[in-house]
C-alpha cells in the first residue's frame, strides 16, 4: 500500500470525487435519464431557431442564386470557404483526441474524447454543407463524384484539389462516424442495462450490437478500437493537408505556399481544442461534470493550445519571411497588403487572437481560472475564423492585375447562413447531450482508481451485462 500511496502522490487522479464504477454510470447516464432542464430547452430552442434562419437563408440563396452572397468577379470565395475550413478545422481536435492521444496512451483524453468526437462529426457536417451550397448549381453536386455514369465519357478532374477535397472529407466523415460509434458500444450497453423504458432499452440494445461484456467482446472491441485509431491517425494530418491544397496548388500569391499543409493542420488542432474547451467548460458547469473534467484536463488542453498556437504564429512569421526572401513582388505585396491594406483589421484580429492570446496560457494562474480559459477559447475560435478569412479574401482581393482589385463585403444571406451552421452544430450537440453519454463511461472507468482503495467494488456495468446475458 505504501507504493500505492507514493504512486498516488506522483500521479494525481484524473477523476475526482473518489468515484466508484457505479457512480460513473449514475453520473453520466443521469444527465440524459432525467428530464431536460429549462436551460437545455432554452439553449435548444435558440440553436434550432438559428438553424431555421440559416436554412431559410440557404433555401433563398439556392432559389435565387449565388448573387445573394457578397462575392464578385475578383473574390469568388469568401464566407463560404472560410466557414468550410473553419468547421473542418474545428473537427480536428476530436480525431486528434480520440486517435492520436489514444495511441499515445494519454489517459486524460477519456474525459473529453466522446464529446470531442461528436463535435467532430457535427463540425464536419457543417463544413460539408459549404462546398455543396457554394456551387453555382448545387443540384448538380454529384458531378464531382467519380462514378460510372451515362453522361458520356464524362469523368471528374483528378487534378483538381476540389475532387481531393471530396475524397478527404467523405473519408473523414465516415471514419470519424465509425470510430465514434464503435467507442459508444460499451456505453450503449450500459444505457440498455439501465433503461427503464422499453423503447430506450430496445434502441440501445439494438445499437449496442448485442454487447455482452464478455472478455472476448472486450478483447475484440479493444483491438478494433486500436485499429480504427491507427486508421484515423493519418486523417488528422491528411484532411486539413488536402483542404490546404485547395489554396496551395493555385497560382494566387498568398495561397501558393508550401507551408500550408503543416500550417493548416496546426491551426486546425489549435482551433479544435479551443472549441472542445468552449463546449466542455459550458457542459462542465451546466450538467455538473466538475469531477470528470477537471483543472488538470483543462491544463493539458491548454498546453496543446500553447504548442499549436505557437506553431501557427511561427507559420505566420515564416510566410512573411518567405515572401521577403522569395524576391517575388506579388508575394511580398500580398503580405504587406494583408498586414497594412484594407483588410488589415482582419489580419490584426487574427494575429492578436491566435498568436498573442494563447501565450497567456503559459501562466498557471490563468490556466487555473476556468472563466478566463473559457473566454480565451472563444477568442481563439474567433481568431481562427479570421485566419481563414484573411487567407482567402486578402489574397484574392488584390492579386496580379491592379485593374481587378476589389473589396468584399458579406451579404445578409451569407451571415445568416453562417449563423445557421452554428444552429446546426449546437442543435446536434444538444441532442447528443440529451440522448447519449457525453463522457465515455467505459473508458473513464478504466482510469479510475478502482481496486486500489475503494472499500467495496460496486458491480461494474459490463459485468452485470454479462450476467444478464447468461440469465
Amino acid at each position, binding site marked *: 500500500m505504501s507504493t500505492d500511496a507514493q504512486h498516488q502522490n506522483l500521479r494525481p487522479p484524473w477523476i475526482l470525487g473518489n468515484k466508484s464504477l457505479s457512480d460513473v454510470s449514475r453520473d453520466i447516464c443521469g444527465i440524459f435519464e432525467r428530464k431536460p432542464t429549462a436551460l437545455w430547452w432554452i439553449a435548444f430552442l435558440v440553436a434550432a431557431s438559428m438553424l431555421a434562419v440559416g436554412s431559410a437563408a440557404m433555401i*433563398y440563396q439556392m432559389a*435565387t*442564386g*449565388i*448573387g*445573394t452572397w*457578397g*462575392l*464578385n*468577379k*475578383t473574390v*469568388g*470565395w469568401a464566407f463560404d470557404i472560410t466557414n468550410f475550413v473553419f468547421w473542418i478545422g474545428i473537427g480536428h481536435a476530436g480525431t486528434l483526441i480520440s486517435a492520436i492521444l489514444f495511441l499515445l496512451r494519454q489517459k486524460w483524453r477519456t474525459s473529453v474524447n466522446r464529446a470531442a468526437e461528436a463535435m467532430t462529426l457535427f463540425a464536419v457536417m457543417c463544413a460539408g454543407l459549404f*462546398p455543396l451550397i*457554394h*456551387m*453555382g*448549381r*448545387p443540384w*448538380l*453536386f454529384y*458531378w*464531382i463524384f467519380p462514378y460510372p455514369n451515362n453522361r458520356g465519357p*464524362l469523368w*471528374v*478532374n483528378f*487534378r*483538381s*484539389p*476540389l*475532387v481531393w477535397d*471530396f475524397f478527404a472529407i467523405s473519408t473523414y466523415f465516415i471514419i470519424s462516424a465509425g470510430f465514434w460509434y464503435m467507442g459508444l458500444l460499451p456505453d450503449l450497453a450500459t444505457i440498455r442495462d439501465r433503461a427503464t423504458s422499453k423503447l430506450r432499452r430496445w434502441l440501445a440494445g439494438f445499437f449496442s450490437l448485442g454487447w455482452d461484456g464478455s472478455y472476448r467482446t472486450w478483447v475484440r472491441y479493444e483491438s478494433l478500437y486500436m485499429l480504427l485509431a491507427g486508421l484515423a491517425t493519418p486523417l488528422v494530418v491528411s484532411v486539413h493537408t488536402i483542404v490546404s491544397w*485547395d489554396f496551395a*496548388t*493555385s*497560382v*494566387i500569391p498568398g495561397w501558393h505556399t508550401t507551408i500550408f499543409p503543416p500550417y493548416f493542420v496546426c491551426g486546425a488542432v489549435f482551433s479544435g481544442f479551443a472549441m472542445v474547451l468552449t463546449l466542455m467548460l459550458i457542459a462542465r458547469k451546466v450538467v455538473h461534470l466538475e469531477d470528470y473534467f477537471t483543472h488538470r484536463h483543462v491544463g493539458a488542453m491548454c498546453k496543446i493550445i500553447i504548442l499549436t498556437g505557437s506553431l501557427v504564429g511561427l507559420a505566420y512569421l515564416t510566410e512573411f519571411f518567405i515572401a*521577403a526572401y522569395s524576391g517575388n*513582388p*506579388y508575394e*511580398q*505585396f500580398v503580405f*504587406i*497588403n494583408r498586414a*497594412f*491594406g484594407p483588410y488589415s483589421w482582419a489580419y490584426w484580429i487574427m494575429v492578436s487572437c491566435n498568436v498573442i492570446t494563447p501565450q497567456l496560457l503559459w501562466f498557471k494562474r490563468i490556466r487555473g481560472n476556468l472563466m478566463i480559459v473559457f473566454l480565451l477559447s472563444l477568442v481563439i475560435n474567433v481568431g481562427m475564423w479570421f485566419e481563414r478569412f484573411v487567407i482567402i479574401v486578402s489574397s*484574392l482581393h*488584390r*492579386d*496580379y*492585375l*491592379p*485593374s*481587378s*482589385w*476589389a*473589396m468584399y463585403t458579406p*451579404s*445578409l*444571406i451569407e451571415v445568416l447562413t453562417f449563423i445557421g451552421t452554428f444552429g446546426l452544430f449546437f442543435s446536434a450537440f444538444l441532442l447528443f447531450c440529451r440522448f447519449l453519454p457525453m463522457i465515455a463511461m467505459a473508458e473513464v472507468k478504466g482510469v479510475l482508481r478502482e481496486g486500489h482503495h475503494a472499500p467495496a467494488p460496486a458491480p461494474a456495468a459490463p459485468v452485470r451485462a454479462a450476467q444478464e446475458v447468461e440469465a
Partner: protein
Amino acid sequence: MNPYWKSPTERNPEHSDEFAPGPAPFNRRDFIKAAGFTVFAAALAGCQRAPIGKIIPHDKAPEELIPGTAVHYASVCHGCEAGCGALIKTLDGRPIKLEGLPAHPLSKGGLCAIGQASLLGLYDSLRFQQPILDGQPATWDAVDAAVKSRLNNVRILTRTILSPTTRAMIQQFVDAHAGAKWIEYDPLSSSAIADAHEQTHGTRVLPRYRFDQARVIVSFGADFLGGWISPVEHTAGYAQGRKLDDQTAWHAQFESTTTLTGSNADKRYRLAPGETGAALTQLAARIAQKAGAKFDTAVTGHDLDEASEKLWHARGHSLVVCGEQDVAAQALVNFINDLLGNYGHTLDIAAPSLQKRGDDNALAELARELNDGKVGTLIIAGVNPVYDVALPVGKARYVVCVAQRADETTAKANVVCAETNEFETWSDAEPVSGVVGISQPVIVPRGQTRALIETLAAWLGKPQSAYDIVRGHWQEEISWEKAVHDGFALIERKPVAVKSFDRSVVKSVTAAAGGLTLVGYAKVGLGDGRQAFNPWLQELPDPVSKVTWDNYACVSVGAAAKLGLTEGDVVRIEANGAAVELPVYVQPGQHDDVVAVAIGYGQQMTKRFADVGPKWIQRNPTLGANCMVGVNIAPLLPVGKLVAPGAKLVKTGTRRELASTQTYHYITVPEKLAPAGGLVRPCIQETTLAEYRHDPAAGIHKHHLPKEDLYPPDHKYPGRQWAMVIDLTKCTGCSACVLACQVENNVPVVGRDEVQRRRDMHWMRIDRYYKGDGDDVTVAHQPMLCQHCENAPCEAVCPVLATVHTEEGLNAQAYNRCVGTRYCANNCPYKVRRFNWFNYRHDDPVENLVLNPSVTVRTRGVMEKCSLCVQRIQEATIVAKKDGKLPADGVIQTACQQSCPAQAIVFGDRNDPNSAVAQARKNPRHYLVLEELNVRPAIGYLTLVRDRAGKNHETHKNAG
C-alpha cells in the same frame, strides 16, 4: 364496330350511321354553347390587329438563303452622323450584329460602340408601332389629313441630315410651303467651326480632318478619338499616322477634362477652359512669328514652344484642331492651319465633312420665333430639343414629331409620326462630300411606321416608298446595284466655293475670367444621349473613368483635396441659374477649375431601366432619385455650348456610390504597401519613341523562364494554334471591342447594382491605368480578355472538367458541365472569368431577337469567359472545309478584332509562320502579360510606345 368493307358496293350508306347526317337535335343548351363560342371567337378575332405584312420572312425561302447561315449586307451605320460603313449580319431574316465595313473609305472597317449598339434600337419593344394623333393611336390617313390641314408657317427641326435624298425631300417640302424653314442642329455642335470657316474662307463648311496625313497633331479640347465629329474615321487615321516608323505622328492635347483623346496623347497639358482662346492666340503668335506673318499679339510665356516648334517643323503635315464652340477661337485655329499650309493636306475643305451641319444661330432664331408665337407647325424629326436645349416647342401652334420612341419632345407633340427604324428602310448618307453610303433594309418593319421621307412625300401629295425615293434620287449618279452591294459609292463631289483666306477676321482672344467652370462632355458610350434607352451603352464602362450607368461630377485630384471631396460625395452644381445634384468622381489629370459632367443623361426614356438587373432582397435600384439614369445638365449649359463659367459647387453631405468596373486606378501598387522594387506592375510594358527607335525591344521585361519544363507539355498542337496579339500603341481604349464582344457573345446586361458589386459580365474589358501623382498622370489602356493560357491555371482546378483545352489552343468552357465552384475564376491571374450570379435579364421577347443563336445563353451558376469567338472559327472552318482547305489567314476575325477602328488586334493561327499573328509574335515589341507565371498565354501584347518624356522609362527601370 364498323366491319371493314371489301368493295364500295358492299358499303351500304344506309347501314353506316357514322357518316349519316341524322336529324340534329339542337336544344337550348347547344344553342347557348354555340352562341357563346361564336361571340367569344368573334371577340378574339376582333382583338387582333389585321395583318399588315409578312411577319415571317422567307416563308418561301429565297434560293440562295440557307437557314442558319448568316448573310452580311453592306450598309450605313446610323448611330451618329459620322456615316460609317456597316456590315449587317443577318441570320434567318433578322439582323443580329453590326460590324465595320472593311472597304469603306472613311471608317475603314471599324465601328464604334455607339454604332454597334444602335442595333438594339431595332429590337426596342417600346418603339412606336403606329402614329399617334392627340395622344391616341391613329391611322396614317387621319394623321396625314390632320397635318396637311395645318401646314402653314412650317418649321422643320432636324439634326444634321446626312441623307442627300432626305435633304432633297425636306428642301422640296420647304419649297412647296411658303414661309417654311428648315433648321438643323446638333446636340454636340460643331457650329463654330463652320461659322469660322464662313468668316475666313467665305463658305460655311466643316473641313474633313485627315489625321492619317498629320505628323503633328495639336488638339485643344477636341476629343477626336472619343466623340468629336467622326471618331471611327479619326481613330483609323490616327492609328495609321502613329505607325511606328520615321514619321510617327506626335500628338499634344491641351484640355481641361481628361478625355479619351488626351489619354492617348504624347504630351498632355491641362488648360483651363477659359484659356483656350488665349492659348490659341499665343500659338498663332508663335506660328505667325515663324511664318513672318502679321499678328496683333506678341509672344509671351506659355507652354507652347514645343508644340509650335513641332508644328512649324511639320508644316503642311500638321494639324491643329479645337473642340471649343467659340467662333473667334476657331478662326484662330484656321489662321494657324493656314499659316502652316495644312489646308489641302490635313484639312480638306474641297471635299468637306458633311457630318455636322447644325447651325446654333438658326436654332437660337427658332427659339426666338417660338417665344414670339410666330411658328405655325413645328415638325421635329429625329431630335429631342426639349431635352437637348429646352426648346419651348409648346409655343408652336401645332407640333408634329417624327420619332421612333417616346421622349420629352414627343410628350409635347400633337402628332407623333412613328418613324421606321433605320434597319427597316432604305436610306442613304453622304458623310463626306463625294462618299455616298446606301443603307438597305434588313428586316420587315414592325408596326405601321413610315420613314421620314415617306411621310414628307405623303404630305407633299406624292406618296412613294422609301425605296423608290432613294433609288430615284440616285438613278443618274451611281450604279445602283453595285452601290447597294458595296454599301457605298464614290460620286463626283460638288465644288465648294472657297475664297482665299481672310486674315482680317482673325482676332486675338484674351483669357476669360477664371473660377470654377462647368464643362459638359460626351461620354464615349452615350455620345449626345440619343441612345439612352440602350442598356448596352448604359453599361459600357467609360474608357477613362470606368464608371457605368450614371453621369457624375468629375473634379481633379487637386480640387477634390481642396474641397474635401471623395468619390461618391453628392455635390450640388449651380450654373446658368439652374442646379443639379451629382456624385463626385475624382478624375486625375483634369484642370482644377473644372467640374466636368457628361451630357445625355437624365432622360425620360431611361425610366424603363427601373427593373433592369436581378431581383433579390438586398438589391439597389439602377435609377437615381429622379427615377432616371443620371441627371440632365442641359439646363446648366448655354445653348450649343458645353462650357458654363461661373459655376458653383457645394457639398451636400449625402453620398451615392458609383458603379465602376475598376476601382483601383493605378499601374503602381499603393505606395505605403509597396514592397521594395515592386511598385509598378509590369502588365503594361511601355517605352518612349526614342528608346524604341534605339532598340525595338525597349521596355520589355525580361524574365528568367525555365528553358525546359519538368513535365512534358500537356498539349501538342498538330494543326492550328490560335493566338492573338494586341498592339497597345494602336489601341486608344475606345471600347468598340467591348461592345462587339457583348453583342456577339450574348453577354448579359446586369444593371447598376451588379456592376457596383463588381459583377459586370463583359468578356472583354479595357483596363485603364494611371501613372504618376495627383493630376500629373499618364494613361494607358489595355484590352484584357481570356488569355487562353497553354498552362491554364483554371483548367487544372475545375473538379468537373468544365474548362478544358482544345487541340487548337483554345481554353474552352463547357457551360452545361459547369457546376459553378468558381475555383477557376479565383485561380485566374488575369481575373477574366465571369460568373452568372443570377439568371440575368432575358425577359423581353423582342429584345431577345438580337441574341446570337450560335452562342449559348448562359443560365445562373455557370462560369463564362472569352471563347476567342469559337463560333466564328467553326463557321469559317466549315465553309473552307467544303473546298478541302483551311480558312486563309485573316478570314476568321474575332468580334473584337473586326470592329476595332484602330486595327490594334491581330488574330490567327500561330502555327502558320506566315500568318499575321505569327509575325506579330515575332515583333520585338511582343510581350506576354504575367509571363513570369509560365502560364503561356495565347494573347500577346505589343509594347506601348509613346513619344513621352523619359520619365516613364526610368520608373520602369527602377521597378524592374
